[in-house]
């Protein structure tokens, strides 16, 4: 039932530069030939301690950022000593070095870089901002990924993944939802990443973004028919709705008191099964299911609240019945 979890492919410095360079205001200063070095850990390290010669717990797999502290420390030595210090650092197979705050590539670093084919990048950002943005970018790159069979919609802010056998009416339902001003994220195949181990983000493949397949009509371009509002690049998945063909005697959820879950990448997502019968307006049902989920997130549980009212009412009735007994 579940697609296998794809381990995030390792990215190399070149890919990182290509995908995030503009956003992170990066420029390549030295050693283009080292761009194929892999980044083996999805975070950023400031090697201040390592520069002093302390290499225990040195995160050599991460991008190394030299900021004000590191550069000022290096500057307190002559060129030869700087070279020795940096050589020790680079010996440990770091993927690349990033200079923040537009620091100048000094001769010692240039020499080490060239000798080791180590790319040196530079950003105009201050170190703190660069680290924050680069960490977020790397978190996405290194997030566990999987592919879910289903159509992802953004229904008034509730990311709803529609599942069900092919032909059960997912696409028709998605179309009806789009007509009601909700947006399509991915049709039929949803690529899901687990971000920060607490959030599932779904998107379509870049190739079919904004397109969907409709039985009997063919491929349609959603954005050009319904406007740009009708498509969305990505959305957190808050709810999974599965359409199942109705059969006599099947168990349907009648109260909504029990919350079922569907697991994606180890995270539990609220899950409802909607039996499909001729004449049922699936779109309306999905819309309502999303709104109920939205209410629950805000702390309202309609099924529980109703049930509590009922139980309280029965308890009151019972106490009224008992009172005359006692006076008798």
């Amino acid at each position, binding site marked *: 039932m579940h697609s296998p979890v794809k381990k995030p492919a390792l990215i190399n410095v070149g890919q990182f530069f290509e995908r995030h360079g503009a956003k992170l205001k990066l420029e390549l200063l030295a050693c283009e030939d080292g761009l194929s070095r892999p980044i083996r850990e999805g975070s950023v390290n400031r090697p201040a301690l390592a520069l002093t010669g302390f290499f225990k717990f040195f995160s050599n797999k991460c991008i190394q950022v030299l900021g004000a502290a590191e550069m000022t420390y290096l500057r307190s030595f002559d060129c030869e000593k700087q070279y020795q210090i940096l050589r020790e650092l680079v010996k440990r197979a770091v993927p690349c070095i990033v200079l923040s705050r537009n620091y100048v590539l000094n001769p010692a670093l240039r020499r080490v870089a060239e000798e080791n084919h180590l790319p040196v990048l530079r950003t105009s950002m201050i170190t703190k901002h660069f680290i924050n943005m680069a960490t977020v970018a790397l978190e996405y790159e290194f997030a566990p990924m999987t592919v879910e069979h289903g159509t992802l919609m953004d229904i008034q802010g509730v990311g709803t993944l529609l599942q069900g056998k092919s032909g059960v009416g997912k696409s028709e339902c998605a179309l009806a939802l789009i007509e009601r001003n909700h947006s399509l994220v991915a049709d039929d195949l949803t690529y899901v990443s687990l971000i920060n181990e607490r959030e599932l983000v779904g998107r379509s493949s870049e190739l079919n973004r904004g397109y969907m397949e409709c039985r009997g009509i063919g491929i349609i371009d959603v954005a050009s028919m319904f406007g740009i509002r009708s498509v969305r690049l990505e959305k957190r998945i808050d709810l999974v709705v599965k359409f199942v063909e109705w059969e006599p*005697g099947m*168990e349907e959820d*009648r*109260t909504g*008191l029990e919350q079922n879950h569907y697991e994606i990448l180890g995270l539990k997502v609220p899950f409802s099964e909607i039996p499909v019968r001729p004449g049922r307006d699936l779109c309306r049902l999905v819309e309502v299911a999303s709104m109920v989920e939205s209410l629950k997130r805000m702390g309202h549980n309609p*099924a529980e609240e*109703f*049930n509590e009212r*009922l*139980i309280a*009412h*029965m*308890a009151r*009735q*019972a106490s009224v019945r008992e009172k005359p007994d006692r006076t008798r």
Partner: protein
Amino acid sequence: MESSESTSSAPETKREKTLVVQNKMGIHARPAAMIVRAANKFQSEIFFEKDQELVNGKSIMGLMMLAAGSGSKLKAVAEGDDSEDLLRELEELFERKFDEP
């Protein structure tokens, strides 16, 4: 159903049973769902009567609106070929206190 005669001649598939609500909280959402689920397995029609209120036993809202607290008596009326099995199953469910205290 169509002629008045057939109802007056009391078809033998119509059965009645009085059931007592024995769990502490009465028929709230969960027991109501259990009753409906059990009733839906059968073809027979089922109605519950309490204090001159009559509701369909396959309607969860109807059952809850009876507000049948602990100790209340419900008259279950089933009609259909499998009405006997239906009532037996319901009786067992009420006896089990809907798996509640």
